[in-house]
Structure formats: C-alpha cells, structure tokens
C-alpha cells in the first residue's frame, strides 16, 4: 500500500552519492550527528579498562595496555537508524579478532557494555572475521566524547546503534539477549540493507 503525497517531488539530493552505497530509506549527510539516550560520560584514561567477560573469567586491559595493541585503520560507510548515512569515515583501533584471540571461547553472541549503562547485542560472527573494531581515533584525531570517546565499538555493516559508544567491554553469551535499544523495540540484528530498524522488520 502506498499513498502519493500531493505535490511532493523530493530533492533527490544524494544524486552525487553512489546509490549502491546508500541503503534503502537512508540519506547521505556530511555532518556527524550525535545520538545518545543520556549524558555524555567522561571516564579518565587512568580509570578506563576494556574487558572481555567469558562466564566467570574476565580478561582486562588498561588503557596503556589497550593502546599498545596492534591497530588497524579502516575507512567505511556508516548508517544510522535515524536515516543518515555517512560515507568514507576513517577510524583506527583494535580489531575485535585481536581481543578475542586472547580468550578461549565458543560463544554464539556478545553483549557490548558501556559507561552509562548502555548495552547492545550482536552475534559473535558479526564481530569476528575483520568485521568489528574497538576504535579510538576518528579522521586521525582522538575520538571525541560526544562520539563515544575514549573508545567505541565500530560494526559498520549494521545500523550504527550497534557501534556502541563509550564501550568498556564485551560479554560473551551462548544465547542472544537484547541490549538497550533492542529492549525498546529496535531490531535484534539491525541490517541496514534489509531495513531492520524495528522489531518485526
């Protein structure tokens, strides 16, 4: 079912963007909008840690240890569920593969947890195999707190709420369990190419 809106033509303002890179329902922005549900946390680096929780076992890195891990620089397109997409964003950080190499595990899912209590859930196979990073620079500069600094998850093939800001660790799980927005009706998986914005999409 569809209704034509009288007099609406649209601006088709993304004509310069490669349509093959813009998922359905998205528009290209050149800003970097900020979306978060609460206050912006400011955790000092000497108090910051990153942990992988695996059952009762926890592997933890201090900021010093974490920032000494090998990094990768990636240039990717990102897609926010609120409909903006941003092309060719460049980030640097640690591949989740590098972190998981240090633990013995056979989990099916992860729950990313963050300062401020935010969480988001992902299948393990979506954060392994060179698909996800914990990044701490954006366009060559330290990641701004508004955008998730000191470090955020980057999972560019899913809607950007999965790329949790202020990430402090990953909890390995056997069963999928909804995170923050997923509890409020957003999609458990969030593939922008299938427009999985909300539950049931």
């Amino acid at each position: 079912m569809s209704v034509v809106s009288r007099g609406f033509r649209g601006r088709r303002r993304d004509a310069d963007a490669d349509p093959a890179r813009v998922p359905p329902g998205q528009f290209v922005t050149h800003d970097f909008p900020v979306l978060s549900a609460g206050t912006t946390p400011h955790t000092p680096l000497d108090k910051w840690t990153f942990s992988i929780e695996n059952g009762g076992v926890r592997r933890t890195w201090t900021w010093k240890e974490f920032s000494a891990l090998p990094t990768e620089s990636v240039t990717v397109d990102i897609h926010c569920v609120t409909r903006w997409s941003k092309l060719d964003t460049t980030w640097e950080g640690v591949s989740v593969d590098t972190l998981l190499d240090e633990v013995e595990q056979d989990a099916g899912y992860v729950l990313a947890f963050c300062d401020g209590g935010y969480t988001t859930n992902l299948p393990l196979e979506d954060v392994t195999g060179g698909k996800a990073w914990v990044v701490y620079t954006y366009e060559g500069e330290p990641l701004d707190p508004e955008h998730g600094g000191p470090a955020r998850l980057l999972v560019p093939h899913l809607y950007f709420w999965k790329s949790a800001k202020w990430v402090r660790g990953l909890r390995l799980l056997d069963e999928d369990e909804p995170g923050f927005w997923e509890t409020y009706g957003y999609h458990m998986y969030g593939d922008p190419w299938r427009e999985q914005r909300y539950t049931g999409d």
Partner: protein
Amino acid sequence: MAGATLHGRLTWRVATVKAVVDETPRVRTLELEVPGWPGHVAGQHVDVRLTAEDGYRAERAYSLGSAPGEPPVITVERLEDGEVSPYLTREVRPGDAFEVRGPIGGYFVWRADDGGPLFLAAGGSGVVPMRAILRHRRNSMSMVKVRLLYSSRTIEDVIYREELDGEEVVHTLTRAQPPGWTGYARRVDTDLLREVAWSVGEGPLAFVCGPTSFVESVAAGLVELGYAPRRIKTERFGTTGR
C-alpha cells in the same frame, strides 16, 4: 517498563492532515487522522514517509506533540536545505495524505506514574515532546511538579506560545529580546540551571531535547549540579536531513 516496547511489526498507515497551525514563520503543527493508530506515550516519535508520483520516497522521524489518548500531532521545523520539512511546512494542506508508522521509542518517555518532580529543558523545536509530556500531565491530573526551561532564538521563534502561558515556563531568548524583556537572554549554562532547575534533594527527573550543543551543555550542567545521570533522559537532533 517496556510498556512502550514494540511488539510485532510496525505497519505504515495512511495519515490524513486534519488541520495545520502555523506556530512560527518556520514551524508548523500538523494534526493527523490515522485510522488504526495504536496510541502513544508522551515523548515518543513517529516515522513519516512521503511518496512522489514517480514512486520516489523520503522518510524522516518527528516527535509527537500530543498527549496519550489524543490524535497524533507533529510539529515540524523547516530546514531550508531539507527535503521533507519544506514540504511539510509549506506545501501540505488539510486533506493531504502521507504515511506514518509508530509510535517509536520507549526510553525518552514519561508516564504520570513515573513521577517527578519533572525538569524539562528544550532548545528550539526540542519543545515538541515536552508539549506531549505537559499535556499528558494535565490530562491525567497528575500532581507532579513540572518546570520547563525553554531556549529560543527570539520571541517569534517560541513554539506553542499561548499554550505554554498556562504552564510554569522559564524562557531564555538567546539572539534577540523584545523591548522590556526581563527574562534570561543567554545560552543555558550551569549558573542558569542552578537558578532554574529543581534542587537535587527533590530527586528530580530531567528530560532534555534540542540541538546537540544544547543537550550536551544542559546534560553536563545538570550532572555538575548533582543530578543522577540515570535520571537525565536526552534526545538530540542535529542532522541536516530533518
């Protein structure tokens, strides 16, 4: 808690414009009739989808400005370089139709049972979900104390001006003030919040909505005053696409 959670698929419904109200030179309210509308909670938003004759579509999200139990209302600020907002604020007239789906969002919401006291802070069109909260409070005869801090550029930019006269509102006009203005005339900072926001001892619940810079400074100021971060709910906008 998850009462606003979406269960099952959100379907697109036809929305017919029943009335338009010009709030300011750049802002227009659209009262909608949506058969099958499932109802909403104060603070939620809705997705709007416009379809051109050749099938081209554009979608955007807008906060709902009406209380639970009332028909859905959206209030749209025109962004001159926008794609959807110029249509909704200039072209649309009563009888026109487009599609909506929702309501969406279960976090930035207030129900009378959630209590307070409520401190609402709005920048520009960030006042839209606050209107839903204020109306819900009145309609439900809630005794919860509420105060709205509302930042606008000029007096002409104040949305819902008459309706807000009946509420406890503290205005600040950041760009220009009318002759004889005795209210605040600056951007919101921690000192201003200290004067206006409920004291921490009252256990206030804060809602903050507006442009990113506004939300960041208000939320940080409230934390500085001792507000618990978990009692500060925020909604930011700042994209070029609305």
